[in-house]
């Protein structure tokens, strides 16, 4: 296991180096630098621009800049943003990345959960009306023009019905005299979510280990979840943060819903195909011959053996969820890393763009490793290949 991890880590480092270099030179190859936005400003004399360029080291050769840049990255210094000077790039990323991550991570988890469940049933009822509806729906979701769907959702839920905000991250008026910044409150929300999830996983593992059977223990995880959520609410209430927490969640709702909805299609079809492939296996026929209950065959035979491609796909999209979607974040004015990247690249803010690229790239690569490890852990035939 350790050797395997070390090997993969080395691979990541090499890939990362290539990735950073490519990113750097592609951005360098783009015309102009951040001073060019001042070029049309008559009050900026060429001397002043040259001065600025000198100050940021932009007049030196590309190679000198590159080597200096590499050295900085290795020492963990992503530099200072040009456009939000003098804010450090890391500071900006630290603020934006969690927003993107929470949105896309939850959307992925929820959509895969629903997609897997629906896909399983769709395959089980293959050829029946329900299956046809689900498949047609999924294909429509996959082929639907995403921005249009997002606009329609905004129009219906926010404009027409007025249930949800015309998006953004928070309501600025509400937050004008908030005790904490939105970033801090958001941090607490993430903290609460992580603790709750960890608790749930722990409880499920304990239940499984104890081998507590069937009906009674089924209610324990939901109860734990309810209690955890209640205590989180109580805590936020006592610290007077509850309305701010709700404001953030309220703004999260629509993009989360749209993203989840649009992604159900692909995970549903993926699961359905995988389950149908497993249906042909001899061990499924043998399981039927043994008189096992349909639910057992569906879950422990079909779904369990079909999980491999679905988990791979999920882990990969979780890796991607750090880079977010420029489209989504633009449409919902969600100030995450995607929007930051877009603006930084267009505005010639190299340090920020490169920093954002690198961070998201690292997570993407980690996502690949996570996919490999997850599938290997789930399949006893592969488990040996990474060592126990």
């Amino acid at each position, binding site marked *: 296991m350790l050797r395997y991890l070390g090997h993969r880590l080395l691979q990541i480092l090499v890939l990362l180096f290539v990735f950073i270099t490519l990113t750097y030179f592609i951005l360098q190859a783009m015309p102009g630098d951040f001073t060019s936005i001042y070029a049309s400003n008559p009050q900026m004399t060429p001397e002043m621009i040259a001065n600025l360029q000198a100050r940021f080291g932009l007049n030196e050769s590309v190679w000198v800049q590159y080597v200096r840049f590499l050295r900085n990255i290795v020492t963990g210094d992503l530099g200072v943003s040009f456009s939000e000077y003098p804010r450090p790039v890391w500071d900006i990323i630290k603020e934006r990345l969690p927003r993107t991550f929470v949105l896309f991570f939850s959307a992925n988890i929820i959509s895969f959960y629903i997609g897997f469940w629906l896909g399983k049933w769709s395959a089980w009822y293959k050829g029946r009306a329900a299956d046809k509806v689900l498949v047609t729906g999924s294909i429509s979701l996959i082929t639907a023009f995403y921005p249009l769907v997002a606009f329609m959702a905004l129009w219906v839920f926010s404009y027409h019905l007025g249930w949800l905000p015309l998006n953004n991250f928070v309501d600025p008026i509400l937050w004008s005299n908030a005790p904490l910044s939105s970033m801090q409150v958001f941090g607490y929300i993430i903290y609460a979510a992580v603790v709750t999830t960890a608790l749930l996983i722990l409880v499920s593992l304990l239940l499984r280990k104890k*081998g507590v059977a069937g009906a009674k223990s089924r209610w324990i995880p939901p109860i734990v979840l309810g209690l955890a959520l209640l205590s989180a609410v109580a805590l936020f209430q006592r610290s007077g943060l509850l309305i701010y927490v709700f404001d953030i969640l309220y703004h999260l709702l629509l993009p989360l819903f749209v993203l989840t909805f649009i992604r159900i299609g692909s995970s549903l079809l993926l699961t359905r195909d995988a389950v149908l492939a497993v249906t042909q*296996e*001899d*061990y499924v*026929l*043998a*399981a*039927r*011959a*043994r*008189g*096992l*209950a349909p639910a*057992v065959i569906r879950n*422990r*035979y079909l779904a*369990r*053996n079909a999980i491999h491609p679905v988990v791979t796909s999920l882990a990969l999209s979780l890796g991607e969820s750090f880079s977010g979607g420029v489209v989504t974040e633009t449409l919902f004015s969600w100030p995450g890393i995607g929007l930051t990247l877009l603006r930084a690249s267009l505005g010639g803010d190299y340090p920020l763009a490169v920093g954002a690229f690198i961070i998201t790239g690292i997570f993407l690569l980690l996502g690949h490793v996570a996919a490999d490890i997850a599938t290997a852990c789930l*399949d*006893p*035939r592969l488990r040996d290949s990474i060592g126990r």
Partner: protein
Amino acid sequence: MALLELQDLSLHYHTGRGVISAVNQLSLALDAGESLGLVGESGSGKSSIAHAILRLLPAYAQIRQGRIYFAGRNLLDLTEPQMREVRWRQIAMVFQAAMNTLNPMYTVGAQVVETILTHEPNMSSKAARARVEELYALVGLPCTLLRRYPHEYSGGMKQRACIALALACNPQLIIADEPTTALDVIMQARILGELESIRKERGMSVIYISHDMAMMAQVAERIGVMYAGVLVEYGCTIDLLAAPAHPYTAGLLAAVPSMADDVTQLQEIPGEPVDLYAPPAGCRFYPRCSRATAQCKEQAPPLLPCRRNRDGEHKAACWHLL
């Protein structure tokens, strides 16, 4: 009364290329405690019969006529939940593809326990595990293998595990479809010997399915010979081997090295296997038969007792019995 009785069973597969007549008007009976061997070359419909009995046929298979009586009930009339209780509890099976009949995601032990607990829900999982250990001892596998996954088993181990699995719920009938194909000759003899002694001890019935006449001679009390979906000969093993009545059976026996008087006499049956999409109207064997006449071409011979019959049990379907 017979434990299992197939009456006039006809089975078709509706495939993209047409309709396959896999089993044609087959009647067969099996008493409790008896062992029956179904022999026939590849594609003669042996596995199809086994799957029909357990009602495991795919949706595009059609049983056009016939009845399958098991312990007095027609299995074809049962609902799916009723059938689930018959499966394994009363009729178990060792599958032809023993390699792939275990779920790769769980340990073999867990799968046997799962099967036992499905049919005996009141049993404690401890008792179930104890039973599985007994079964493993019975088929000569070490209990440590129970915690292993199927991919960690060798082919022979899997086959033994599948036999243990078939015995798990003490069924009245086991259908063993090529139970020893993955094994070498010595192992094959040992496993079959074990299975036979278990059968006699427990008074189970077993249907052995194989294309290997020599193997059948060792284990089966009665033998049914299949050709292209038709039961062409049926009888007590000794009678059938000593005096085969159907030309196809005679051909099969001549093709077995240990049974031909002299290896140089070893003969193959000439001709091509039947195209089951369009089987001959008369006797399905006539295109390959040296004794075929015009009658064979037009009329299918019924399965009737042979003339030189001792107990009236030896039957064959041929117009020109040997």
